[in-house]
């Protein structure tokens, strides 16, 4: 088999862009194999005609599938640029003309303590050293980058003892300091996104008012941030998302801002909502603007032994689905084809995943319970990320089909909350949930409004409807940020609360030790 790459990028059309939050564990395999025979030949699946490099979806010639977009975080990166060039060559040595990487500044990992930071002397030399390293890494690595925000959860009772932050205002003040530092020291190789946080509308509004100057050319000239990143309530509470966008429209801060990133959402319905919003922004405000969103679910799922099986696109279920992957030593050397469809999966047999046979010793010289070696995790990540991209694109395609069919026949004013008994009684389509179709009409009308008041009134009128669209998570929430919660998840509606690079995650810690 020597099939050309399956290129998923053209299927993006004018859809909001899903950015796989690429795990450093995954990129390391691609990078190390370029330098040495890190994975021995007999361990590489026989179907891998282009070897490990075929797993590199940023490589338009060699990838088994290719997709030009990704997110990579400074929070788990090799910040020493000399080392990063080799160790993260999947990212650093990509063709910059045919790929796009959004760099995350690693605020999450700093808040969690994964990335060491001198919280006691926030403006001191040690802290500045970290800031500068992150800034230089982002300038060298990413096309677009997020400024180093201090998320609002950094002041909650769990994180406050470490960060010393007590209030949202503390987080905002520290973020302002970081923003100033980044803009003053920016080099011009990457474009910057101004990060918006907040628990609710009031705190999100305070945050916005506190940081909007960093996007204002009247204040910062050509150093002003070129885009926005929506975090906290801005990225998952639809009424707040829309009010924020309208506010940006009215403040003139979407003109010339060509990228808006939504931090961490794996929900297929949001990929549709964001596409519909993007179209209205392009139509009415800035035809160059792109909306993206990221999640690390394909990578996190793998760390917990889950495989993407299929995705459900029906009105009853609209989500990617993952199940416990086969892990059994009886399947070692098995030539049974890997049963789940992807450009990675179709090149594998079960023996490629279930590598260890009974009696085989792992890299630390012990016989473990699992049949998976660490490379099996990388293979599964490749399969999972393909499935996630395709599931998102299929959702967006189906949405467009149903919108074309129902054009002019749906008025959001007739949306109503259904009782459990009435569930399914107001569907227009066999495929696409009604909320997406109603939202299409709503958002079209919303961006026709001529004033902030008119738009806000419309959003308030539709509050019950918009509340039902709420995203699955607020970033960094305390209760959900537990390993056990994720471990039991069968269906991804949630994403990167547990970061695969988090050394506190026992599964990943074990993986890192073995590589």
């Amino acid at each position, binding site marked *: 088999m020597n099939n050309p790459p399956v290129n998923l990028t053209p299927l993006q059309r004018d859809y909001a862009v899903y950015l796989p939050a690429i795990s450093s564990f995954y990129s390391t395999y691609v990078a190390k194999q370029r330098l040495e025979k890190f994975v021995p030949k007999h361990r590489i699946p026989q179907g891998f005609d282009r070897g490990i490099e075929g797993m590199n979806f940023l490589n338009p010639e060699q990838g088994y599938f290719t997709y030009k977009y990704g997110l990579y975080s400074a929070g788990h990166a090799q910040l020493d640029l000399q080392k990063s060039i080799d160790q993260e060559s999947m990212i650093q040595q990509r063709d910059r003309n045919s790929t796009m990487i959004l760099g995350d500044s690693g605020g999450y990992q700093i808040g969690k303590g994964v990335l060491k930071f001198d919280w006691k002397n926030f403006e001191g030399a040690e802290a500045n050293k970290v800031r500068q390293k992150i800034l230089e890494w982002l300038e060298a690595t990413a096309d677009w980058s997020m400024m180093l925000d201090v998320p609002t959860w950094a002041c909650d009772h769990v994180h406050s003892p470490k960060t010393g932050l007590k209030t949202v205002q503390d987080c905002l003040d520290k973020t302002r300091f970081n923003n100033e530092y980044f803009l003053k020291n920016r080099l011009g190789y990457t474009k910057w996104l101004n990060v918006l946080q907040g628990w609710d509308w009031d705190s999100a509004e305070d945050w916005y008012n506190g940081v909007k100057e960093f996007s204002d050319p009247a204040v910062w000239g050509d150093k002003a941030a070129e885009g926005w990143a929506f975090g906290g309530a801005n990225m998952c509470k639809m009424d707040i998302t829309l009010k924020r966008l309208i506010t940006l429209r009215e403040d003139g801060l979407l003109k010339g801002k060509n990228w808006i990133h939504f931090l961490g959402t794996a929900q297929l319905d949001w990929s549709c909502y964001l596409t519909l919003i993007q179209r209205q922004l392009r139509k009415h405000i800035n035809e160059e603007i792109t909306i993206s969103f990221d999640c690390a679910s394909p990578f996190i799922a793998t760390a917990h032994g889950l495989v993407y099986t299929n995705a459900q696109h029906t009105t009853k279920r609209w989500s990617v689905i993952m199940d416990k992957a086969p892990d059994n030593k009886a399947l070692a050397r098995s030539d049974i084809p890997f049963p789940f469809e992807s450009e990675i999966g179709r090149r594998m047999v079960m023996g490629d995943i279930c590598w260890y046979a009974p009696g085989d010793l792992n890299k630390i010289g012990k016989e473990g319970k699992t049949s998976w070696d660490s490379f099996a995790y990388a293979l599964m990540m490749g399969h999972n990320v393909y499935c996630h991209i395709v599931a998102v694109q299929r959702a967006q395609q189906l949405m467009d089909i149903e919108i074309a069919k129902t054009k002019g026949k749906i*008025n959001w004013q007739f949306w109503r909350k259904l009782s459990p008994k009435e569930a399914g*009684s107001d569907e227009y389509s066999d495929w696409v949930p009604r909320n997406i179709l109603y939202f299409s009409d709503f958002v079209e009308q919303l961006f026709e409004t001529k004033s902030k008041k008119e738009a806000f009134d419309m959003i308030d009128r539709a509050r019950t409807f918009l509340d039902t669209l709420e995203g699955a998570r607020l970033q960094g929430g305390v209760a959900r940020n537990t390993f056990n919660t994720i471990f039991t998840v069968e269906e991804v509606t949630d994403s990167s609360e547990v970061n695969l690079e988090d050394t506190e995650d026992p599964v990943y810690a074990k993986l890192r030790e073995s590589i």
Partner: protein
Amino acid sequence: MKYKWYWYNLLDTQQINFVLDDIESRPEICTKEPKENHPDFKNVSDVKQIKALDLDSGFVSLFARTVHKINRENFGLDLYYDEPQGFNLNYYHSESKDDYPFHLDSSKPNSMSDIKLTAVLNLSRRPYEGGNFSIALSNQPHIIEEINNPGTLLVFPSFYLHEVAPVTKGVRITMSSWFQGPNWK
């Protein structure tokens, strides 16, 4: 086939106001139905006829889709899968004790299709008294209370004898339409 009637809570107050505000802001879309159409009835309601094309297409679609769904799940009648061409907007005023005595809905003689289902949607903005809707079953009127709730859509076979009792207080507003299919056999 077991005929019956089915109701569905279709609209909330805000949506009722949206529909009525839209219609009342464009009086030119309404044609008053002549009282002569009902020579046998003395106090028949004030009826306005509206073309479906002049109504909000989202509303028409929702109305039609719901009726077809009710048919699919409960009646199984052979209907043309069309949206209705027109609607009647009925205002029953208590001052004139408007009512609509027992009658059935049918197509004109020799028509190539038959009216099979009648759909009535309560669009009353405010509470009213009287105006109970009844269907005659075994020569006994059976009051269907549920249609008195604003926003409720009632669907029943058009050949059922049905009536609206006089309204004694307030204004009862309903919108009705009829769904056709091939001739009864």
